[in-house]
């Protein structure tokens, strides 16, 4: 019997699910191997659980989403977080470092009043056990295929834990540290084929910090290169600031001795 796979979304832009649709012909091959029973943006069918594999895009940003993710977890053998919002809270997790009222004022007005009971955007792992994370904003569609194939073959995928720099060097890029004085590549999970530096943009860390990161070195070098404290903080917090590996970032950046 083909495994029952369901794709869900919480608070997100749906961009990661669009990446799945972008697989086009390959998607049809994949559909031959699985029973896709829920995929809001791709299919009309909506079957209840249990599921063999649930894939969830988006952060938990509303109270009702806490219940939703817990239900998905209960219904699923394997739960995969899809994309930066699901793995780290994503762009909307910036609210952790901003004035909440100001954000609300900017987001809602008389025409568009607030209708949900929102909470600060959090990764899925804050509320449920996540079996594997497909990182990135958006995900790399081939990364998705790779993970799915491994799950279908009966292997829980293992992360490489390589920094972005590895693939950046494979692509023989100009180092953005050298070019622009800043880059989160050495501290960030690769697997994206170094897409930003390969297009002459510093890595802004969407795949999250490596467990092995050397934050002190990163801050020191960026500061030496004239990058301001605010800019370093902004870069690090853009997508994955809630990661506990970045807990001490403010202290480290403000500490002049780095």
């Amino acid at each position: 019997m083909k495994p029952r796979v369901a794709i869900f979304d919480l608070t997100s832009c749906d961009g990661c699910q669009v990446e799945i649709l972008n697989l086009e012909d390959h998607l049809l091959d994949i559909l031959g191997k699985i029973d896709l029973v829920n995929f809001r943006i791709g299919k009309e069918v909506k079957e209840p659980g249990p599921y063999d594999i649930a894939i969830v895009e988006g952060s938990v940003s509303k109270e009702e989403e806490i219940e939703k993710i817990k239900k998905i977890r209960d219904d699923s053998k394997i739960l995969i977080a899809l994309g930066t919002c699901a793995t780290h809270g994503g762009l909307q997790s910036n609210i952790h470092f901003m004035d909440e009222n100001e954000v609300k004022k900017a987001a809602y007005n008389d025409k568009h009043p607030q209708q949900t009971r929102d909470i600060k955007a959090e990764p899925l792992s804050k509320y449920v056990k996540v079996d594997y994370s497909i990182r990135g904003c958006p995900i790399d569609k081939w990364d998705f295929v790779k993970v799915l194939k491994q799950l279908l073959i009966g292997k829980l995928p293992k992360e490489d834990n390589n920094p972005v720099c590895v693939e950046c060097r494979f692509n023989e890029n100009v180092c953005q540290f050298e070019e622009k004085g800043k880059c989160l590549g050495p501290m960030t999970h690769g697997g994206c084929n170094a897409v930003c530096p390969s297009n002459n943009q510093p890595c802004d860390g969407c795949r999250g910090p490596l467990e092995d990161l050397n934050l002190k070195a990163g801050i020191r070098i960026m500061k030496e290169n004239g990058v301001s404290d605010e800019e370093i903080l902004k870069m690090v917090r853009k997508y994955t600031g809630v990661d506990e590996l970045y807990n001490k970032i403010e202290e480290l950046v403000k500490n002049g001795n780095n």
Partner: protein
Amino acid sequence: MTNIYKPELLRIDKVFEETKDIKTIRVKDTSNPKPGQFYEVSVFGIGEAPFGSASYSPDFVDMTVRSVGSVSKAIINLSQGDKIGVRGPYGNGFPMDKFKGKDLVIVGGGTGVAPIRTVIEYVEKHRQDYGEVHLFFGFRSPEEFLFKYDYDRWKEKFNFTITIDKPYEGWSGNVGFLNSIIEQSGIKAENRIVIICGPPIMIKVTVQSLEKIGFTDEQVYVSLERMMQCGVGKCGHCMVGNKYVCKDGPVFCYKEVKGMVD
């Protein structure tokens, strides 16, 4: 040109259920490994990993597999008749010729008894070359015993001692760690070689006990575990100091191991 990375496809001939998460698989193969050598085993789609040979035979190779990594988990799920990829044998193996004329103390802890079994089978076939043979096996509990089907035969031929870490209902044999059992056994260091396979901590404390008895590091041989991918000294992962564990080892005299630092 032969391709060192290309495995041979072999059918699993027999599967022996050892414990709840350990199996021994047998493939027909005439490479007849030296005691202590290993093979690279592939389950295609999952990957490749090194497994020590657990048998000494010109007709087949046994490999004892515990379900820890993705490849071993996949092997555990295979059955008789399934195909796996096999390359090898690799590594130096125990220098059995050098041990000729000596009394042997063979010590195995947990899955470490698998490579030890190759040594025992070798000694059985070359019995006249060696003097007195003591076997010391240690496991967490009787549920973890490996190669139970061999024990009666070994008890007849050798001094066979088995111990478990903690008391276990229904077990009336030895309880305690291998090192203390060896200390209590009364064996003397003279003209003896010790072969140890097991977890690093067990090797360490066993050597400490052996030193108390009077053994020197030159008398002790161990098999090391490292991350290995190619098995032939190319991929680099298993390098410790100026040695490749896969090619220069996995068997080392303890005197050499002491100088190896990461």
